[in-house]
């Protein structure tokens, strides 16, 4: 309602009424609108509370501390039915964040590849990418999730007939089972070495950039990084005598025990969200690339840059400025779409809160919590992407 008074109109005091003062009126209108919104909000909240009280329906967030008494299939932090509703909801939030973040990373990679493929000079690649985009973005995501889930659970054998592509790795309709390193100092040391290698690589990268700015020469950054990231942990592990201690999954009773599991529900969610969102991201990437004028590519070719380098050094950096804002929307969509998890049994925030709502009957509080959590996650993504957008924006001189 901000009314922009561009021209300073001399106050018509001669007519006497302050109501005809444009400044006063603009303030008045805004006060009225804000007051109206507050009144309606107050009416709704008050009406709901008094009706709930009259119908003897309990209200408040006291239930968060009570014992949840229900189990959750997939949890990143320890959780049992003896834990509180609050912890159950935390498990759900973490599961939502897990599938959203992994989905965002995977969809970005896949979407960029498909987007570039859409502009390929190879007819077959170009058309395949087109078919991919049109097929995936025009079918409702819920159906795609059902499809992926059915494909995984129906086509894979039961745990007792599990496929074993590599010794110790099992593929069945209970999920993808892989061995994990068991507790041993060698593994911890190797992990530390890996992190150290990342830090050193980053420093080398900075040095190389500085060197190039000064002298025009570059260090062989790729080889150094690969050597560090692979070699350093390997050497450390070897230094401990290369102990082969793994927690290998094994069949016991109904199912596998030990190792780590990628559940069918999580896999279906991740595949579904990734492939669906990647179709939209591909179109954003394509349009971003096409927004960079063709003259840039020609200029780069004239300077003798190979097509791959042209894309990486000239076109993509400029395309990013067009790509980032709509990409942010896709990231937010993916995060919000993860709430479809309840349909195929992935224990995300909505699924956990659904159960909580029904065990406690506190629908309004539960729905408010769902909205607050999604708002927080989405705002976090927005803030990060806006920061990144500013960083890559054209620096005008």
């Amino acid at each position, binding site marked *: 309602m901000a009314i922009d008074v561009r021209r300073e109109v001399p106050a018509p005091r001669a007519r006497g009424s302050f109501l005809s003062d444009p400044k006063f009126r603009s303030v008045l209108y805004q006060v009225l609108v804000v007051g109206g919104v507050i009144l309606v909000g107050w009416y709704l909240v008050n009406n709901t509370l008094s009706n709930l009280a009259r119908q003897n329906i309990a209200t408040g967030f006291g239930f968060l501390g009570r014992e949840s008494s229900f189990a959750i299939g997939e949890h990143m932090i320890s959780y049992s039915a003896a834990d509180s509703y609050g912890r159950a909801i935390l498990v759900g939030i973490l599961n939502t964040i897990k599938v959203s973040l992994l989905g965002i990373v995977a969809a970005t990679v896949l979407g960029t590849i498909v987007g570039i493929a859409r502009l390929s000079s190879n007819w077959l690649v170009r058309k395949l990418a087109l078919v991919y985009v049109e097929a995936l973005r025009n079918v409702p995501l819920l159906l795609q999730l059902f499809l992926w*889930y059915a494909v995984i659970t129906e086509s894979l054998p039961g745990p007792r007939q599990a496929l074993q592509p590599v010794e110790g790795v099992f593929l069945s309709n209970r999920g993808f089972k892989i061995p994990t390193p068991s507790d041993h100092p060698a593994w911890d040391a190797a992990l530390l070495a890996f992190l150290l290698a990342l830090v050193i690589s980053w420093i080398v990268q900075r040095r190389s950039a500085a060197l190039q700015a000064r002298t025009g020469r570059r260090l062989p950054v790729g080889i150094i990084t690969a050597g560090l990231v692979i070699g350093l942990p390997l050497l450390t592990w070897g230094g401990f005598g290369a102990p082969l201690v793994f927690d290998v999954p094994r069949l016991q009773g109904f199912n596998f025990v030990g190792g780590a599991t990628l559940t069918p529900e999580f896999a279906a969610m991740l595949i579904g969200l990734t492939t669906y969102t990647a179709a939209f991201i591909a179109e954003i990437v394509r349009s971003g690339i096409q927004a960079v004028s063709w003259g840039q590519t020609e200029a780069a070719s004239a300077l003798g840059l190979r097509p791959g380098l042209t894309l990486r050094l000239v076109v993509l950096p400029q395309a990013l400025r067009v790509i980032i804002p709509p990409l942010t929307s896709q990231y937010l969509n993916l995060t919000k779409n993860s*709430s479809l998890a309840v349909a195929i*049994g992935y224990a995300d925030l909505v699924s956990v809160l659904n159960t909580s709502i029904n065990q406690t*009957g506190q629908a309004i509080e539960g729905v408010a919590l769902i909205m607050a959590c999604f708002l927080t996650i989405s705002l976090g993504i927005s803030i990060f992407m806006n920061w990144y957008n500013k960083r890559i924006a054209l620096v005008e001189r």
Partner: protein
Amino acid sequence: MTKKILLAGAALLSLGVASAAQAGPTVDAIRQKGFIQCGSNTGLAGFGNPDSAGNWKGLDVDYCRAYAAAVLGDASKVRFTPLSAQQRFTALQSGEVDVLARNTTATLTRDTSLGLEFAPVNFYDGQGFMVQKSLNVTSAKQLAGATVCVQPGTTTELNLADFFRANNMQFTPVVIESQDEVVSAYFSGRCDVYTTDASGLAGTRASVAPKPEDHVILPELISKEPLAPAVRQGDPQWKDIVTWVHYAMLEAEEKGITQANVDQMMTSADPTVQRILGVTGEMGKALGLDNKWAYNVIKAVGNYGEVFERNVGAQTPLRLERGLNALWTKGGLQYGQPVR
């Protein structure tokens, strides 16, 4: 999902609107609109399930028809709202349905904190486990480590966790909202075990299983599941009607009044039969109904035994025994309070 949030939102908004309708008794509202809005299962064979022609069939469905017969004199004046386990209480609270006859377990928490009242139990059930025969499991105590398919938002989910905790066993739940999806996850082999009320297991095995003989229902019942219709709090007259329709159907079975012979029974010399059928006394008037209320109910759906046999009994695909649901005179728990 969206539907549920919409429902919650609608509940939030309609609490204000619905308050006007609730000021008067539910029965007045029903008479005015000319039908009963009945919350039903989205599809559970034997309890509430639309057939291929779209006609609702089932024990709970027959109860809704019985209420319509009692209040409006016409069993066909009922409309069904299929509700998921999670939508059901919100739908009742918000006034979207007049009565919830949807195999709902009566518990203390539900009775006290959800703003509803439970009528007498119309089906005594218990939670059971169904497993594939090829697993050679004979007792629920052997299920340690199993993966269990279960629907959310039910007492089932809690009993399941309680049972495994009490027996010091681990399990992995696969919690899927829609009945169809959770059942198909079990039949695809995603889970070793499917758990719900034993009657529901029998219904699923009879109507969905590719090969019913490949699945066994384990003998243990791990919980008491008294399934009862529910109404909103604050309208004792409507609750009385829902309560006494059930008792009248039990009394009718006890006295041998059936759908077929109800007209001859009008001339019976038995004073109890006369009171039930409204030949003498003012039983209907006391409930705010026509004195022929129970006659209409029995004429429309029959007595309790007939409703049971027609929907879930030995001649149906569910093949359930009367068991706990036999009349008290035959060793069961169904005990009709006297209509007098």
